[in-house]
């Protein structure tokens, strides 16, 4: 039996850590929904729409973290040339675009009752849209760019440029006049609102790590399979 067939037969078992993360995210999500809908008080000025905050802020946080992870993995890939870092960058970028899309959609749905418009060219919204385009650009480069190592290097450069956008999004409320609240780090919030927000951020982060592990594992298998196809051909 050759190495290739042996590798195909010895598929790695599903990790215990991934199962634990899935269970933890399900439990945390149930707790979060209880806190959001039944425990957290209704904010007086914004009314019930303020509860969108508990979805929108964690999504925003993860969308920004994702591009930094993509960039870090891309740097490691450029420095070492190892396939696993490129797989991590690709998986994170794919998940990042899901989160970035959700930030924009949830923001638009929140903007309508609060500002009266679905969209405005507010600096924070605009820089977030730029982040979305960076993710799209990265994935398009991977799909339609040059094949092999060259395409991976080009995409890594896009990710490095994209990472510059993360601190700009974060500091947008300080640098420009914007409709978003000035405090990025919540301060002066009601204790129940703050606890609900922190639990929600934790929940979405655990779920993100779980989804990333799943996607990364799939991506590794895809890369291995491509390698096997190359050997068979």
């Amino acid at each position, binding site marked *: *039996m*050759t190495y*290739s*067939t042996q590798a*195909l*037969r010895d*598929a790695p078992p599903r990790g215990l850590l991934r199962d634990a993360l899935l269970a933890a995210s399900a439990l945390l999500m149930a707790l979060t929904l209880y806190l959001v809908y039944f425990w957290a008080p*209704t904010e007086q000025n914004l*009314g*019930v*729409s303020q*509860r*969108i905050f508990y*979805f*929108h802020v964690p*999504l925003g946080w993860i969308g920004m973290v994702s591009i930094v992870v993509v960039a870090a993995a891309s740097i490691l890939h450029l420095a070492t040339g190892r396939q696993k870092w490129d797989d991590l960058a690709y998986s994170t970028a*794919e*998940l990042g*675009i*899901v989160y970035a*899309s*959700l930030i924009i*959609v*949830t923001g*638009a*749905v*929140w903007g*309508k*009752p609060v500002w009266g418009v*679905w969209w405005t060219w507010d600096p924070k919204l605009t820089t977030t849209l730029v982040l979305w385009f960076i993710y799209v650009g990265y*994935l398009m480069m991977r*799909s*339609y760019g040059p094949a092999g190592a060259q395409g991976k290097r080009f995409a890594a450069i896009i990710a490095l440029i994209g990472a510059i956008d993360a601190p700009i999004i974060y500091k947008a409320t300080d640098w420009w006049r914007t409709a978003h609240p000035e405090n990025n780090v919540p301060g002066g919030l009601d204790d129940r609102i703050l606890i609900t927000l922190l639990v929600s951020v934790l929940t979405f982060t655990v*779920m993100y790590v779980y*989804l990333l592990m*799943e*996607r990364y594992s*799939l991506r590794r*298998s*895809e890369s291995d*399979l491509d390698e*096997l*196809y190359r050997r*068979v051909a």
Partner: protein
Amino acid sequence: MSFIEGLRNSPLFRVALLGALIALGLAAWSAFGTVGAYDVPFGMQPAPAPQAQQSAEANLPFLFAVFIVTWAAFFGYVLYVSRRQREMQGEIEALRRALDDRERSSADQRRETNPNN
């Protein structure tokens, strides 16, 4: 494969399109519901907003829209990943068969060229 064709065949694009359609539908439903509440015949003063609209629960559809869109996106993505996993399993099976056939045929060839072994 052209760019448009590639995009159309991409499962991620289909999931994103489905999510966008759901979001658009919910948003339109919420918006038309609000507009309809204030509709008056031409030339008349608009009726005051109903009390219910001014209460804290007035924006409940927007909250549910966010909830549904978020979960639809996550479920869509998990479905995409699990479908890709199934497809890959099929590819692994096909590759395994191809490798086994190749090994078998090379073993047969060896036996034919050297029948004493």
